[in-house]
């Protein structure tokens, strides 16, 4: 009886496959446009994908518990607008305080979803379909529909995600930190394990003394916290806050999870999968314009890739399993 190594469990073959595809794509793009694969440029592509990575990892937790959070993009827009307006009103606030504020607002918005799912028992897709509209509507209400532009934001508000450290932006480092933190959370904490249990078999979770709703609530709070933080990072990085910030971004986030092999039926998935799925999408988004593919082709290509990825995923899921006739095969 050979012990499967921890690494083997952490990174299943699905993630290897996805990683290999990403490397192949990089090589392909590098062949056409060599500058794309220079370290500096890759760092920038990563920077551009950072927000998607963080959101995908947080969304994964929600999906693990058999829920879905469609309100993340609206959360980004609302939190982003809140901190932008806050920055206009109190320009002296340090960026770190703004960051914490954004996480706080995000948690509140996430917790609202979570409460409705947990205590009222409305299916999450309905709740977040609702709050997706509600939160974005509130962006309009608090801003009066007006934009907050770069020149209204203070330099320290704008500087945080842009500052670089060891050739990577702070935004990238935050994404890496969030990903690692969530990895430790999923693998080495009781809460993380319970989240897998809740999605894998809610009934069994109840029988094991795990409160399903509570853990769903927790994942919504995490998703909200990450979305809120991304709200600040987004607004600061693109130096503008307006109603339509990140519109329809939730679908990209869910798509990243799907590509990363997170089972929409709950209970199956890894942080690496979600992160790789996000990187994959980000790579497409960044590479296509560079290799000179007409912008009109971008959408169709990413759609096709999603469809192919899920088909490949489903195939690799099906192999393996149980065999009664083991002797006959030897």
């Amino acid at each position, binding site marked *: 009886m050979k012990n499967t190594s921890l690494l083997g469990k952490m990174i299943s073959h699905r993630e290897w496959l996805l990683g290999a595809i990403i490397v192949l794509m990089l090589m392909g793009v590098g062949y056409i446009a060599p500058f794309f694969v220079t370290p500096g440029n890759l760092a920038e592509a990563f920077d551009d994908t950072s927000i998607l990575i963080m959101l995908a990892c947080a969304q994964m937790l929600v999906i693990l518990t058999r829920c879905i959070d469609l309100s993340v993009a609206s959360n980004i827009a609302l939190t982003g607008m809140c901190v932008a307006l806050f920055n206009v009103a109190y320009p002296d606030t340090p960026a770190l305080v703004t960051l914490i504020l954004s996480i706080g607002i995000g948690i509140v918005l996430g917790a609202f979803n979570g409460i*409705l799912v947990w205590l*009222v*028992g*409305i*299916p999450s*897709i*309905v*709740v977040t*379909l*609702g*709050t*997706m*509209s*509600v939160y*974005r*509507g*509130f*962006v*309009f*209400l608090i801003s009066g*529909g007006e934009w907050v532009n770069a020149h209204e934001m203070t330099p320290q508000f704008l500087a945080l995600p842009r500052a670089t450290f060891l050739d990577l932006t702070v935004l990238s480092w935050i994404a890496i930190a969030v990903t690692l933190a969530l990895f430790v959370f999923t693998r080495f904490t009781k809460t993380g394990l319970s989240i897998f249990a809740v999605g894998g078999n809610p009934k069994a979770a109840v029988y094991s003394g795990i409160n399903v709703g509570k853990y769903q609530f927790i994942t919504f709070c995490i998703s909200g916290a990450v979305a809120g933080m991304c709200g600040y990072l987004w607004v600061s990085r693109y130096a503008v806050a307006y*109603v339509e910030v990140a519109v*329809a971004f939730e*679908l990209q986030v*869910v*798509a990243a999870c*799907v590509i990363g092999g997170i089972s*929409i*039926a709950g209970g199956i998935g890894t942080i690496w999968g979600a992160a790789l799925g996000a990187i994959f999408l980000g790579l497409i988004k960044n590479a296509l314009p560079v290799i000179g593919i*007409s912008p*009109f*082709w*971008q*959408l*169709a*290509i*990413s*759609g*096709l*890739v*999603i*469809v192919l*990825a*899920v*088909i490949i*995923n*489903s*195939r690799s899921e*099906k192999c393996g399993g149980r065999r009664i006739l083991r002797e006959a095969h030897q």
Partner: protein
Amino acid sequence: MTKDIKDLPDNLNGDWRNKLMRWETLLMVFVAIAFFTNTQISPYFLDPWSLSDATFNFTEKAIIALPMALLIIARDIDLSVASTIALASVAMGFANTMGAGPIELALIGMAVGTVAGFINGWIITRFDIPAIVVTIGTMSLYRGIAYIVLGDDVYRSYPSDFAFFGQGYVWGVLSFEFLLFLCLAVVFGILLHKTTFGRRVYAIGNNPTAALFSGINVKRHRLFLFTLVGLFAGIAAVLLTSRIGSTRPSIAMGWELEVITMVVLGGVNILGGAGSIVGVFIAVFLMGLVTFGMGLMNVPGIVMSIFTGCLLILVIGTPIIWRRFLNARKMRSNSGE
């Protein structure tokens, strides 16, 4: 408590019909409130032409909501409907440049929609992948194809007869679109609630495995439902294209979520297995009334979405809390007896 079956009262499905009535009553109450509020806030509300005009805002979405309700009851979902509209519309525009007449255009739109729906269904049933996942992909794919074909171009100058589908009136203020919706709603109500097909849809939605073990060809039913949704997205594409008289690849952007909101608001369980066409029908009017009323007050669409969002949560949440309250009371009275 339990009795031998011989002694049972012969009540046909009385129990769940009661439940159903309660749900739809709730929706009707909301409709009445919306109606009354509208008459109060605007002197223009009760004008037949205004009301007729208002129906154009939701009729195409409502038409897709009918088969979508069946699909969701059967535990599936299709997020690609809006993109299917774009694809079908582009196909019609292209056919128009080749000189197709109004009827051919309509047929082509419906055919393309059907094919798109079939492809969704085929991938989903063939590879056994959750529908939400596949249709997130085809949502980009179909609209992407529309962008490839059309780019920054536009198809316009459809034949003038073609305008009838989306702009024509059948009788007085009754538009062709709206009449079509009313007829289709009746057809779907009968289909879901009176036929073997409808019963099987419920069976699949409640337990696909047991449905399969009961001899129902689950895959074929699901495939059919996806194709049906595609066909109706095609019909919606015909109506919409005819109504706005032009095709751009961004047509009908974001409609998928509005259609699903209508269906869910109508009491269809997003997790499958339960729901009625009557509920969806009322929900369509509820949404129409609310948005029309707010439109009369020039409330921006984005603010309306706050209301529809709240309405969605409220309408789904109220019966859940209400049921829980009733159960708790029943428990108490039971244990007290």
